[in-house]
């Protein structure tokens, strides 16, 4: 059953251009589909590197790294992974597309309100740069 829902979710990610095919194949099209769910396994119909709705679009060559919770494999991925998964899984990161200011705010909120460990400034900068690069509404 779980696999079935993943397949369905994959179908929801198809573009409108695929509608005729989707309809004839009796696959549900949803006009309210949002950005693809990052927890869904990648399928040929939904390539993460070319779909403009995915967070990875800003850096088309960056692929998810399964060793680090499928975070985009780029500079800062390891530091980001270990900093964040102390409290939560990468699923919530993979869903975000925020302004730089919101990332700065969230960082402070996580330290002051949520008890996040505060790393050295150099690490902080690396992680924030990584988040702002790959999970941004600005780029």
């Amino acid at each position: 059953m779980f696999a079935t829902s993943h397949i369905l979710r994959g179908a929801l990610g198809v573009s409108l251009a695929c509608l005729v095919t989707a309809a004839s194949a009796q696959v549900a099209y949803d006009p309210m589909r949002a950005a693809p769910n990052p927890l869904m396994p990648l399928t040929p119909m939904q390539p993460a590197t070319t779909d403009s709705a995915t967070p990875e679009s800003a850096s088309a060559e960056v692929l998810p790294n399964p060793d680090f919770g499928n975070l985009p494999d780029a500079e800062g991925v390891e530091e980001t992974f270990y900093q964040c998964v102390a409290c939560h899984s990468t699923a919530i990161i993979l869903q975000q597309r925020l302004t730089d200011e919101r990332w700065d705010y969230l960082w402070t909120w996580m330290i002051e309100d949520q008890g996040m460990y505060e790393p050295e400034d150099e690490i902080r900068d690396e992680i924030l740069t990584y988040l702002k690069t790959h999970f941004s509404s600005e780029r």
Partner: protein
Amino acid sequence: MTDSITPETDIEIAEKPARRSFLKTTALGALGAYVGMNIPFAENLKAFAQGMNEEDIMAGKPDLILLGDRPLNAETPAHLLDDEVTPYERFFVRNNGGVPDTALNMDAEGWTLTIDGEVETPLVLTLDDLKNNFEVITRRLVIECGGNGRAYFNPGASGNQWTTGAVGCAEWTGVRLSDVLNAAGIKDTAVYTAHYSNDPHLSGDPERDAISRGVPIEKALAEGGMIAWEMNGEPIPAVHGFPLRVINPGYPGSTSQKFLTRIWVRDQVHDGAKMTGYSYRMPAYPVAPGTEVPEEDMVIMTDMPVKSLITFPQSGTQAPAGAATEVRGHAWSGSGDIASVDVSIDFGATWIPAELEPAVNKFAWQRFRANVTLPEAGYYEVWARATDMTGEAQPPVVPGWNPRGYGNNMQHRIALIAT
């Protein structure tokens, strides 16, 4: 916490209360071997939501869309919310912290609820006290996450990217919140409730609350509020707040604290975890998308907006051209009952009144039905628009952008393919 701790190696899975027996096993791994198999105790697996992998967590809710595995968050596709009463299997999950061991083990031994603060007589109530000393009622109440619809804000708003499925209407059994508060005697100095529970904070810090929200005392004393121990005729399942939760229907779901241990009646607006900052708050004035709103200009969300969902047919379904096709769903509002629901098959150019059933009780969702005839073969969308008793209707597009993406009640729409 006085709750008994069950050793990790001794796992008890609560059966249905009518047949109170226990399946015991010696390790989570042994349980994991059962998952996915057709076993007599499959119903009981719902008790487990922690210490297992992603697929095991969702074993009891196989058709939900998983948004996060730690903390556990999952939403329901619209066409799976067609039931009048949302069953456990299709009820969304929104957790701010971990699921406490007491819930995972379905262990309510020694559980008490404290009512204190601005009251004449502080109370410490056992589950039996609640069941025996107050009128027991059953109500269908909508619970909707304040962030349902967040996925449609642009620029994005931080948090789980709920689309339309962070909502459900279950049948809850318990006592009126007002009866319990009045039994303690509310002082004139009472301003706000503050809810506490035993779910662990994500950081593991025992001094932190995963969430502690509340409502204005007027809301807590108003019709609708409950302290519940049953969901759909069974003990509230682990991920929904076993053994006790408060429900404040019409307000964001976060005011319906799970795993409830204490209601502190305060002489000021509560400032617990996720009451302050940007959490469950909206700008005090309209802002352009992406605006950085100063914290002091954010105000606490109260009533959820009027909303509806098309639950049948599933989006993308084929329908015969020139013949009537039934479209149906539910409508609800934080302010109470719905006045009307209209549907459109021409992108909102014209609207058709839907039949609307009355609510079985205040804050239950209401069934709407309409027959639509798609004139010729091709692509159509069905849009639904609910209007509440105050005359407020759902907007066709995402309403006022806000930093955390709350309160999106845009009209729901599905695709129908006429053949």
